[in-house]
């Protein structure tokens, strides 16, 4: 009989294997989230969103969500490894806040782009006209909802998979749209004060009006196409 067939061999082999597997799982669960590349320079959205805001928003606010998400996930891994359900549950708010912040901002940078003058076309245009009457009406409704958010949060144009329709929703703080409402996010307007305060001060309506100039309709259309086909 070889060594692994012996009692001692079996015990050692099982011990090594289970530690080895735990280590592999721990390493893979430690692969970290990263700040996504910004598709344009900080000044690309001027004069609608200042370079100063873009730099701080991306390099500080979004970066902090990413690093805190990594910390929360590391702690989650440790809690799970210990079978500590209480600790797992206690991490939920940090995961929701930082995970939501990372998801939301990653979408936001893609949703925006240097002013191109383009408007929605084809399928997206038809869907907007069906669900809102006109592109202008969509802008009015999403703007109104975003301006009315109490405190911090986001206004969203989302896609409802069940009904196949476009819908407007708002979420508080960094609650992510899809996990909270089931709607697929197409276009988000960040109305946390940090998104506009340095430039627009307390006049949130001016910021929300301005952001339509830098809405990247290609990106929004591509999210819509993906949501419809998914």
């Amino acid at each position, binding site marked *: 009989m070889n060594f692994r067939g012996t009692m001692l061999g079996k015990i050692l082999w099982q011990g090594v294997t289970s530690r080895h597997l735990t280590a592999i799982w721990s390493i893979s669960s430690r692969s970290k989230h990263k700040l996504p590349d910004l598709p344009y320079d900080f000044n690309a959205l001027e004069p609608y969103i200042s370079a100063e805001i873009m730099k*701080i928003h991306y390099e*500080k*606010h979004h970066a*902090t969500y990413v690093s805190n998400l990594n910390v929360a996930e590391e702690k989650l891994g440790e809690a799970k490894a210990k079978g500590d359900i209480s600790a797992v549950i206690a991490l939920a*708010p940090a995961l929701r*806040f930082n995970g939501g912040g990372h998801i939301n901002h990653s979408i936001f940078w893609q949703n925006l782009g240097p002013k191109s003058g383009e408007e929605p076309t084809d399928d997206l245009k038809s869907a907007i006209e069906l669900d809102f009457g006109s592109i202008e009406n969509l802008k009015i409704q999403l703007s109104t909802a975003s301006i009315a958010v*109490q*405190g*911090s*949060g986001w206004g969203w144009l989302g896609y409802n998979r069940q009904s196949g329709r476009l819908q407007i929703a708002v979420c*508080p*703080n*960094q609650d992510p749209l899809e996990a909270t409402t089931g709607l697929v996010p197409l276009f988000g307007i960040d109305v*946390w*004060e*940090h998104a506009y*305060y*340095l430039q627009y*001060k*307390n006049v949130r309506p001016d910021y929300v009006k301005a952001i339509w100039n830098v809405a990247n309709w290609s990106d929004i259309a591509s999210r819509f196409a993906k949501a419809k086909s998914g």
Partner: protein
Amino acid sequence: MPDMEYELPALPYAYDALEPVLKQSSLKIHHGDHHRIYVEKLNAAVKGLSVATKSIEDMLACIDASTPKAVRNNAGGHYNHSLFWLCMKAHKADAVNPIPEGRFLSSVHNSFRSEEGLKCKIKDAALSLCGSGWIYLTANAKRAEICIESIYNQDSPIMQDVPGDGVPFFALDIWEHAYYLDYTFKRAEYIDRWFGLTDWGFVSDAYENWALKGSVVRVSRL
């Protein structure tokens, strides 16, 4: 009873009195725009409602889940900011700013071991608030022990449907508009420096003569 006309209270100090912790230009926007707009919108929201005859203190105590949002948010905004201005005083550069002797200081030592202990806990609460909101210190007639409460948006523990039974006698604004022009994303630095402005004399008096008696701290001169 005639309807109230809520008013923006004058600051107890000049706009530049809190420099360099808070710039004159920032205070002008915070008081002259944010707070003023809460007052204007409150006046508009309560027209014709029975609460319109109440003082701001009494109105806050009536607010519950059925209260229209426009009344709730603007009444909360008006009261909270009124209390906030009273919690600050003119800044003296390099001056130590200790809590004066008295029942409040004793209570701080009982619950937090030291002034530094209290400030540390307030700062922790402020850094953990994931959105817009306020950090309050509360107590009441049955509870002399000081509680630190983190409340979102413009809500207050005084409101009927907000958890907590304490009377706030200290309010620290953690909405980004309170610090963004002076500190941008550095909320921690804002808190550290804000303790140089805290009017602990007012806070001690509000604790002893209002909160411990179960009365909402009066912020209006009417």
